């Protein structure tokens, strides 16, 4: 009771600025929590909830910065926690002015029931967000919004059933998502499985790169502007990439490496698509590719769809590619250097070219 009263007294003393209305309650289960709000420029906030590699209970961290050129760093770890139980760390960074840099690093035990959650929200130009998570059932969210310019988002995850979500509403945004490759944190770093990467980009000239290692991964990418460049690289089995590019002059490259098995790629480029290109390369067994380049408005064309499937098939249509194109002057090329390969190319419009090598 005394503890509760003390806490209430302290909280009642806090006269938060109007912009800092953050719900932030101390934990009742021996957990740590830290809140930093900074108003002004060139500020730095560092929350380290992994001091000496120890987590002293579950950790909750929140940083809010309302000024230009601020830095925020949050470190959370539960790998060698002296407190028993399943831990879930939560960290949030909000930066509301330009040139903010935000970094969140979270590490917790593999197989833990608890989950890490990290969220970075930047409503500013030239914002950088870096988010690293190791362990299972982690969620990483980066939102760079409100007409921001030149944002950069990087997510690195290792473990099972992780989710990375990146939203950018800005020009010339760059997105990097790595699931299953980084190491160097505490403990072992096994291959990542069952992870999901979701990227939504609404600004012009975005550059999106997703790399997934492990099995049963999925990358869902939506790009809705122009001159977008999307690259997906996968190494593992039963992986899926699903790209929707509602723009012009887009570039999609998807590569599944030699060790992959039963990967699939679904690419949709539509809405008067002009000058878009899609390159799909699958080197593993039993891949499937589905590319649609559509001219909804009637002025599209000059698109390219290029599929290379160099893996092996063991039964009919194990290696499968479908390309649908309409508009004018589109080009489709399919190269399938494997047995049990099937290719379907459907083109409607004028001046189309289709080349299939099997």
């Amino acid at each position, binding site marked *: 009771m005394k503890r509760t009263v003390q806490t209430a007294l302290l909280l009642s003393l806090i006269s938060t600025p109007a912009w800092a209305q953050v719900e932030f309650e101390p934990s009742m289960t021996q957990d740590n929590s830290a809140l930093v709000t900074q108003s002004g420029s060139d500020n730095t906030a560092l929350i380290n909830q992994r001091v000496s590699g120890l987590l002293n209970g579950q*950790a909750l961290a929140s940083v809010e910065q309302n000024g230009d050129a601020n830095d925020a760093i949050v470190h959370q770890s539960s790998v060698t926690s002296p407190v028993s139980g399943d831990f879930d760390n939560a960290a949030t960074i909000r930066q509301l002015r330009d040139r903010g840099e935000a970094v969140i690093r979270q590490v917790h035990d593999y197989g833990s029931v608890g989950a890490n959650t990290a969220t970075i929200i930047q409503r500013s130009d030239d914002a950088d967000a870096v988010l690293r998570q190791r362990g299972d059932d982690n969620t990483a969210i980066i939102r760079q919004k409100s007409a921001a310019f030149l944002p950069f988002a990087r997510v690195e995850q290792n473990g099972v059933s992780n989710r990375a979500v990146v939203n950018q509403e800005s020009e010339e945004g760059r997105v990097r998502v790595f699931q299953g490759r980084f190491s160097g944190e505490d403990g072992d770093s096994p291959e990542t499985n069952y992870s999901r990467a979701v990227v939504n980009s609404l600004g012009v000239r975005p550059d999106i790169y997703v790399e997934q290692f492990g099995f049963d991964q999925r990358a869902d990418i939506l790009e809705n502007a122009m001159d977008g460049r999307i690259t997906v690289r996968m190494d593992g089995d039963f992986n899926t990439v699903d790209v929707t590019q509602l723009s012009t002059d887009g570039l999609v490259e998807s590569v599944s490496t030699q060790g992959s098995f039963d990967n699939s790629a679904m690419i949709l480029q539509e809405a008067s698509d002009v000058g878009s290109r899609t390159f799909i390369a699958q080197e593993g067994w039993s891949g499937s590719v589905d590319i649609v380049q559509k001219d909804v408005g009637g002025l599209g064309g000059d698109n390219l769809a290029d599929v290379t499937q160099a893996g092996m098939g063991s039964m009919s249509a194990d290696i499968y590619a479908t390309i649908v194109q309409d508009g004018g002057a589109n080009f489709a090329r399919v190269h399938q250097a494997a047995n049990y390969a099937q290719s379907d190319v459907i083109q409607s419009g004028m001046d189309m070219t289709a080349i299939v090598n099997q």
Partner: protein
Amino acid sequence: MNTKLLASTALAAIFAAAPAFANESLITQTEIGHTATVDQASGVAGYSVTTQKGVSNTAFVEQIDASDTASDGVANDSLIDQDGSDNIADVVQDALSEDANVSRVFQDGSDLMASVYQLGANTSKIDQASLGNVAEVTQMGELNDSYILQDGLEGTVTVNQGADASAWVPVEGHGGEEVHAGEEGAEEAHADEEGAEEAHADEEGADEEHADEEGADEEHADEEGADEEHADEEEGKPSAWRPSGSGSYGSISTVYQSGEDNVANIFQEGNYNISMLNQAGYGDTANIAQSGDDNDFDGFQAGTASNLNVTQIGFYNSAYVVQTSYDSLIDLSQDGEYNIADLTQNEADVGTMTVTQVGGYNDATVLQAGEDNLIDLLQEGYDNIADIDQTGSSSTIDVDQMSAGGLVKIVQGGGSDNEITISQMSTDAVAHVYQTGSGNIATVMQ
């Protein structure tokens, strides 16, 4: 409240009309180099008035009751009034009853010395004007009241209430070095005087005696074994000084010093004591040491380069301090539980606050305004609270909470290039940081 009422009663007795005393002495001396000695050691309720006008005079008054004089409420009463420089006033009073001894010393001049030693429930008032004066008060017993006013430069005040200053040993490495400034006068003051050695001779057993005082033991015995822990802490943990253990409860010390480079040393041992300090000049220094439970210190320093060292050992102690100028220092150490520190440095450029609270459930509230300031707070123990408000630029806050359940709230605003570091090396910790301005750094480690 009881303490305040008793103190008020004692003060009122100072100005009361002279009662019917068993022994009475009136001495008046003028010019140079006189010595007045009043020895009222054979009767009861002595009354002495000594007036000396001139320089290099000495007045010595000794009043020791031969039997209990509880009936009239006042044991001994001494008034020494000296006008001139290089005068010395020395008063020893010992009442066998719980009645109050009253001593008043008024000195006007330079290089004055007033020394008062009292046994019983005592009241002492010393009023000194001009520079280089020394006032020393030792009061043994309970419900003592010391009031010292120094108006001038380079004055020194030492107050011992319930403590033998010679037995208060500063412990190296825990801020004790500053506290030993009290030894300057204290060791000389009455260490060899009659009764003093007897009162503190049993230093080894003094801790036990102190622990049993005024129900403090009962009061804390049920609190999570706090009494045992506290006893162990006192024995095994380094502290700023080692109390003698004799103790005096309900005493009040009030010190006013105006002028520059003054020094005040105040030692209180026992429970429910109050110390009040007001220093108004440049370069003043105060050393406060309180041992026991429920002690209060209330300090105010208005001059530049003020220096305040406070040590409190025990439970439920509180320290309220205000400093209003720059380049000042507050060094506070509290060892025990449920202690309160409320510290303010206003308009305090280059100010420093160092606060150490050892024990659980402590509360530190710190306000600092100015440039290039420093706050260094260490809290050891469970469920401590730190509430810090710092305004200005280029300032630093360092908070360390070493046990579970710590709460830290820091507001740092209105400036730039400030830095905050919070270390909470345990569980159930909460840190809230609010910074406004540019170029600030906040670091939270949990």
